[in-house]
């Protein structure tokens, strides 16, 4: 039985570029922007980095292949840079690589960088792309909203939820995220919306309207990690430690057997169960202070609340409407605006979530800072589509709790 990652690795510093339609810069510039903040926060020299990981979702467009783009852009000191891609969990994978390197003792200090330059596509939404020669012959070339909209159809049918009730709960998710994003100077979308605007928006993929879909953004975020001991030796006092990092990849069970009912994310449930065990959490609804989940679409956030065992199955939509996940609710979700409004540069998103949790844990979140000192802060990614995906659950918190 693995002993897990809990408290073996500390976050030394983090940085995050301003997300948005960054017509002014490319992937290199975004990485530099995030990295300069992180290296200053960590208080180390670049020469102290032993290894680096680079998470990118659409490398053909963002950076090109390999880890070299990060090495060049950041002028890294002749170290190994490993590029990772795991759909929307690419940023989290980058962090996992760096964290595991430190935990193994192979590196003292490691960098996890995530970046995405999406707004060179020429159109809204994610770029269309091939998924391999077999898939291209038999798979559906749909869109991300189309893939996730199906969750709503199966979830609503399974639990007998009236379409208008579900649509209203989904709208609440987005209204809340806009309210949170408005307080975040680095967020892509900072405008407030009301429920009617969300409900009456143009349809993108039935039943998801425009405001049920997250922003597609340019951005970068990064973390510098080390051991708690080294962090202390560098003078750090409020040490934020990794409590759990779990990634689960679909093995085709959802897509090919007839056992999955389409209404939830199997991988998220497994990843959450493993992560809670790794972090020592027994009552997620009671013990989690904050969640940054993969709200690529409003329905995804709503159902994720159930898959993380915060809401009971079939009841998440009620918790949403009751404000449980609002910024002033019991378990705020996307207090930074989430993918919805902070934005979703694929490779950066997992690290952006950890960045917000890190700021909140250190009391540095400015206008959106939670009053009660946070403890366990969770971040969650979901890549691919509900029927075949990668899900990650990461938890960070003060060292020693």
């Amino acid at each position, binding site marked *: 039985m693995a002993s897990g990652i809990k408290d073996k690795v500390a976050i030394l510093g983090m940085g995050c570029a301003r997300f948005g339609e960054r017509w002014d810069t490319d992937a290199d510039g975004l990485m530099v922007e995030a990295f300069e903040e992180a290296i200053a926060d960590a208080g180390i020299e670049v020469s102290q980095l032993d290894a680096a990981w680079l998470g990118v979702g659409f490398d053909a467009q963002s950076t090109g292949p390999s880890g070299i783009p990060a090495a060049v852009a950041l002028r890294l000191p002749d170290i190994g840079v490993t590029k990772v891609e795991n759909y929307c969990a690419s940023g989290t994978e980058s962090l996992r690589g760096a964290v595991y390197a430190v935990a193994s003792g192979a590196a003292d200090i490691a960098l996890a960088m995530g970046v995405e330059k999406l707004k060179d596509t020429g159109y809204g939404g994610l770029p269309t792309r091939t998924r391999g020669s077999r898939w*291209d*012959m038999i798979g559906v070339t749909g*869109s991300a909203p*189309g893939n996730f909209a*199906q969750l709503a*159809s199966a979830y609503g049918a399974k639990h007998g939820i009236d379409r208008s009730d579900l649509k209203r709960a989904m709208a609440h998710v987005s209204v809340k995220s806009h309210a949170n994003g408005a307080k975040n100077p680095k967020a892509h979308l900072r405008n407030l919306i009301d429920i009617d605007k969300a409900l009456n928006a143009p349809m993108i*993929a039935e039943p998801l309207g425009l405001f049920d879909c997250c922003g597609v953004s340019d951005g970068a975020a990064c973390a510098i990690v080390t051991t708690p001991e080294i962090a202390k030796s560098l003078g750090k006092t409020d040490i934020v430690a990794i409590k759990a990092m779990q990634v689960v990849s679909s093995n085709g069970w959802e*897509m090919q057997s007839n056992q999955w009912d*389409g209404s939830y994310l199997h991988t998220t449930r497994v990843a959450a169960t493993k992560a809670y065990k790794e972090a020592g959490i027994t009552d997620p609804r009671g013990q989690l202070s904050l969640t940054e989940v993969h709200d690529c679409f409003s329905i995804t956030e709503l159902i994720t609340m159930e898959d993380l065992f915060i809401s009971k199955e079939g009841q998440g939509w009620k918790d949403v409407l009751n404000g449980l996940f609002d910024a002033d609710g019991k378990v705020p979700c996307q207090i930074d605006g989430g993918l919805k409004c902070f934005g979703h540069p694929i490779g950066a998103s997992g690290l952006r979530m950890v960045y917000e949790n890190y700021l909140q844990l250190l009391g540095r979140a400015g206008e959106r800072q939670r009053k009660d000192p946070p403890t366990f802060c969770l971040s969650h990614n979901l890549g691919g589509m509900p029927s075949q995906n990668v899900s990650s659950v990461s938890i960070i918190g003060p060292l020693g709790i």
Partner: protein
Amino acid sequence: MNSGILSYGLYIPRRRLQRSSIYEANSWYAPGLGGLAKGEKAISNWDEDAVTMAVEAGRYCMDGIDRDSIESVSLASTTLPFADRSNAGIAKEALNLSDNVMSSDRTGSLRAATSSLMQSLQNGATDLCLAADRRKSKVASTQEMNYGDASAAFLTGSGNVIARYIGGYSNTIDFVDHYRETGSDFDYAWEARFVRDEGYQKILGSTIKSALAKLEIPGNAIDHAVIAVPVKGVPQKLAAVAGMAVEAVADSQMATIGDTGVCHPLLMLAMTLQKAKPGQKVLLASFGQGADVMVFETTEHLETINQRQSKFMLPGLKDTNYSRYLFHRGLLDIDKGMRAELDEKQPGTSLARDRKTVLGLIGGKCSETGVVQFPKTDLAVNTVSRASGTLEDYPFADRLAKVLSITADRLAYSPDPPSYYGMIDFEGGGRMVAEFADIEEGEADVGKQMRMVFRIKAFDELRGFRKYFWKAIPVQRGES
């Protein structure tokens, strides 16, 4: 020789474009089309061509028939998608016929289907004769008003035939009433009056008379005269000249389906068989650089096949969307947007490897657990032993399915937006995320029963290729 027709199938696309819609858009230019602006014509969707339509008719024809009994398959069409790749061979894969089957494409004349059928009947072989056409026509032309899309399939052979082949007569005369040069999109047609007098009346009329004389059948013995001439009054005149009763003349289907080209004689024959009684004589006549005439006598087995086929005869759906029709024919350059720029290059290697998966919708059944899945994989989805290669071929194409999840996607590019797709669970196990075709708003939701159809998945316009795969369509009343 005791050969005849064993079965038939007919596929008529659901959408029926109202001719008044064509006229309304074009009357400013061609007011003369007003006389033709009556009724409707069957139009196929953007993802259909001669091959996919032929496959659909073939499936109806083969319903309940052992596919291993087929000796050869032919596909007749003047609009075959491939000039060099057996189109009948694609249909063979989609119909999951044996690899040992012979195949041939028949083209070059509107008579291609009847000539093919006649050869099979004369050989007495168990042949599947497919016919389909999806002709293009210039905007505001007579052809645009007349041409419809459909496919038909006839299975020939001996045994329990539904119509015994009495005999046939054929001639070949290079009479150019219309033509289409290789590589061009549109027919060039000569004056209708010339074609009527010199073509239909002289060539077809004399062939009908010669056929009846050769077979020693008096005209008045013919119960059903299927004369595939899409011109009002001509079949009646030809029938009368040959001594056949005018009442015996089969409906041309011009008012509801249109002139379906190569398919048309077989379409009219199939629709006539639907109404025929056992023991009746049916004459089939087609025209195109000569003429083919065949005479059949229906048998007591007709009723069984008629009942089976009637479930596939679905009501049409009125369509007034002329610009969509033009777009689906490649006649309107709609801005598809950047999302349509995805490169659809098809590696020949992967198509060769996954031929049965892609074209036949063959999945696998695990010999250890009995679990079925799509597609086949080396390790079964619920593998217990972790042994590889436990999956045996398992066909999904003719299995019904139910919608588990669905969306109507307005972001992804589709030539017929919104793009409907979702996960479907097959009866008897197995599932897939499938594109849905032929869906009108409100027609599909979770729990809806679906059936699979063979369609075009995507076009590779850069290299001139089309990718075929299977899609799900809602089961309409009767089919299940």
